């Protein structure tokens, strides 16, 4: 940047009248970046257009236009600096929160994850049985773009190709072997025998429909070289909106709850997503199986967060005080060793401590307690204690650092004056240092509470929420906090994934956190300091 030599007044005038022109490199960078963003946006818009997802298409178009408007117009400088961060913030923090709110009012989950049309075709595809005495189709497994297809030769010698996604379609230019079986096709790669073996699971799952209508049946293979005709046992009647079992004649109709149900209450496995209103919330508060555990989990979440903050703060403050001595030998080395737990990844800490506290083989029982079999992680009360202990181990260095900083920034003259007035060290600490310290540390304590309220890692890695409650079917336990319960309901190995219920639980957490933060911000008045 060459400095322009001119008198101060002149240059000031220039900077007021003219917008300082960006350098060529800057302009170029701007054009390239905006071009890339727009190119990507156009690509996304085209895909959305092809998939006929109109609502998202409009939204994406508007976002693209806004981005271009922000960067192409003159002025509006703050928006240019804020836009990139806010873009991600709006999509992946604000939007997903609102979306959680929406999901909480649906029955989204295992067996209910798509539209009714998708559910119907997937029921038709799933309920297929081999047609007895149906002819054998000879197949060759070919691959294109990572997807497997059947290259089939039907009993009449006609050759066609298809995959799970695309129904069979006749081809004429396939290479055949001596028996007339098609073995190769242009643009497709024929799988060798060992590749077929390696991709067994995927090939066995291939269900190639004869046409767009699943009622026409499908081809499946069990060995990668011969395929048989399968036809649906459940037939969909579009006019009546029912499924009829071809063998038993049972009729399944829309239950209004996102599933097809027969008269005697039999339910077809695949359902679809519908809006269920407050059903998830009602379930959380009225279903015996969930209400009891939810209440216990909520209480424990508060206890856990509160004790974690208090214990780490107490220890950290005590240590900061003990080390706030002008000449203490080895202070540096103590400090480094002491903050090591803070530097140790939290998820590993939970796992390592779960080993240390293992009742049979763990170090703590074997070394400190002479081989006693103390159930640190499997007794409800001890497990809670262990979780708090491990969190103390993880959290006290942070409080130690914060308190040290805050102590050192306290005005020395106040201390001096109190000391001259004959205040004891304890008095000095409780009536002068602590109140002053709390003023500056209180917002961090609140933040720490909020963090521990959702401290997933420690709980999940140490006890996985266990020991499990015995009086419920939901897979939660004595040390589960709300967020681990949400994870368990949504992604756990338990009964089935229930995204709707999990989101409803998240919304409950949102409200609790919101109330806490409003109260605490009022208390500390920290918001008023922003200018």
């Amino acid at each position, binding site marked *: 940047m060459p400095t322009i030599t001119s008198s101060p007044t002149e240059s000031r005038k220039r900077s007021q009248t003219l917008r300082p022109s960006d*350098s060529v490199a800057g302009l170029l960078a701007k054009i390239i970046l905006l071009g890339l963003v727009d190119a990507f946006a156009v690509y996304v818009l085209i895909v959305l257009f092809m998939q006929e997802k109109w609502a998202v298409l409009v939204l994406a178009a508007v976002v693209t236009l806004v981005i271009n408007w922000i960067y192409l117009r003159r002025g509006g400088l703050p928006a240019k600096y804020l836009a990139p961060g806010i873009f991600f913030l709006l999509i992946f923090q604000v939007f997903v929160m609102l979306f959680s709110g929406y999901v909480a009012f649906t029955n989204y989950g295992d067996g209910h994850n798509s539209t009714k049309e998708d559910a119907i075709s997937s029921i038709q595809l799933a309920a297929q049985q081999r047609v007895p005495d149906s002819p054998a189709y000879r197949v060759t497994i070919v691959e294109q773009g990572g997807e497997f297809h059947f290259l089939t030769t039907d009993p009449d010698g006609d050759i066609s190709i298809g995959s799970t996604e695309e129904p069979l379609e006749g081809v004429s230019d396939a290479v055949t072997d001596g028996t007339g079986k098609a073995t190769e096709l242009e643009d497709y790669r024929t799988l060798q025998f060992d590749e077929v073996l390696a991709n067994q699971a995927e090939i066995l799952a291939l269900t190639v429909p004869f046409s767009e209508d699943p009622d026409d049946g499908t081809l499946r293979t069990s060995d990668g070289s011969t395929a048989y005709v399968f036809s649906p046992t459940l037939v969909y009647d579009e006019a009546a909106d029912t499924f009829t079992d071809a063998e038993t004649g049972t009729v399944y109709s829309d239950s209004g709850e996102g599933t097809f149900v027969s008269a005697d209450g039999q339910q077809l496995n695949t359902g679809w997503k519908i809006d269920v209103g407050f059903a998830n919330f009602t379930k959380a508060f009225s279903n015996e199986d969930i209400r009891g555990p939810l209440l216990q989990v909520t209480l424990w979440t508060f206890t856990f967060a509160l004790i974690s903050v208090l214990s780490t703060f107490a220890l950290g403050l005590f240590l900061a005080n003990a080390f706030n001595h002008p000449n203490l030998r080895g202070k540096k080395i103590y400090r480094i060793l002491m903050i090591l737990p803070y530097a140790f990844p939290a998820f590993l800490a939970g796992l390592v401590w779960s080993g240390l506290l293992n009742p049979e083989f763990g170090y703590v029982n074997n070394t400190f307690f002479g081989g006693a079999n103390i159930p640190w992680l499997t007794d409800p009360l001890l497990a809670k204690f262990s979780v708090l202990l491990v969190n103390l181990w993880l959290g006290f260095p942070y409080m130690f650092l914060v308190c040290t900083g805050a102590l050192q920034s306290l005005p020395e003259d106040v201390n001096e004056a109190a000391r001259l007035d004959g205040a004891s060290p304890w008095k000095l600490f409780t009536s002068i240092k602590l109140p002053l310290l709390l003023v500056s540390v209180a917002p961090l304590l609140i933040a720490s509470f909020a963090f521990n309220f959702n401290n997933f890692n420690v709980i999940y890695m140490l006890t996985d929420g266990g020991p499990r409650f015995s009086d419920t079917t939901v897979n939660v336990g004595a040390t589960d906090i709300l967020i681990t319960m949400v994870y368990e309901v949504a992604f756990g190995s338990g009964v089935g994934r229930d995204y709707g219920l999990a989101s409803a639980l998240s919304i409950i957490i949102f409200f609790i956190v919101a109330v806490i933060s409003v109260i605490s911000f009022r208390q500390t008045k920290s918001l008023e300091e922003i200018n």
Partner: protein
Amino acid sequence: MATETPTPLLATPSQGATAPPPERRKQSFGAWFRDKGWRHVVAVLTTAFAIFPLLYVLSAALNSTGTMAGSNVLFSRIDFGNFEELFSNPNRPFGKWFMNTLVIGVVTSAATVFLGALAAYAFSRMRFKGRRVSLLSLLVLQMFPQLLAVVAIFLLLNFITDVVPWLGLGSQLGLIMVYLGGALGVNTYLMYGFFNTIPASLDEAARIDGASHVQVFFTIILPLVTPILAVVGLLAFIGLSSEFVIASVVLNDPDSQTLAVGLYSYVGQQRSENWGVFAAGAVLAALPVMALFLYLQKYIVNGLAAGSVKG
């Protein structure tokens, strides 16, 4: 900028104290203990509490008997068998996990620092409509971690998979984008406070010399605020290296997973069996983070102190 606050305060009196050593000898043990001795006792006890789990995992890593029961006498046996096994299991590609974590962590924290700094610059140097409201919203939003919306994040990425497969479920780039949703928030706050301590007269002078706002940002502000950038970047990296929930939901293929997800799978079901190999993985996973932390320690301490003072 790196004002090491404690050092000047401490240096002077300690030099004064070491100068006359005989004086200290005269001090009775009781007086010494009341003044300093108990502090050493506290320090040794706390240090022991702080480091014994770390020593334990290090010892287990170096002990190739491999089971938890065999790891109970610290450093009874030292070899590298666990480490060899760690790198030779194709179903649990530790080397890949390590690289994945490193790449995701570095890219995300660099982008986080950049996005946060852009926003902090705007908040600190420009006055515009809605500024106060935006700052307050950031403060409030950070009370709601993304973790809470993990179900919605999963469903959103599931949707993105249909439109742009390489940004959806299973994609590390998608995961990075999700993480960037949290780029503003507390980071911007920390940086904003720090940016405010840089006198505005500096950039005004540059503007008078004809520098554009972009040049002011890159050549004047950023170099001066390096300490806070390092703190934010490092804290982001440390946070990301421990992030389990979202990563476990987004990355389902072992080859693309991060250390947190991968190492959990090592001991998720049967904790005591793979213990030695897991410990070796834990040591390797923790070492870079800890080294970085200690190296940049003084920045972190200053940053935290600054944060606590300014609230």
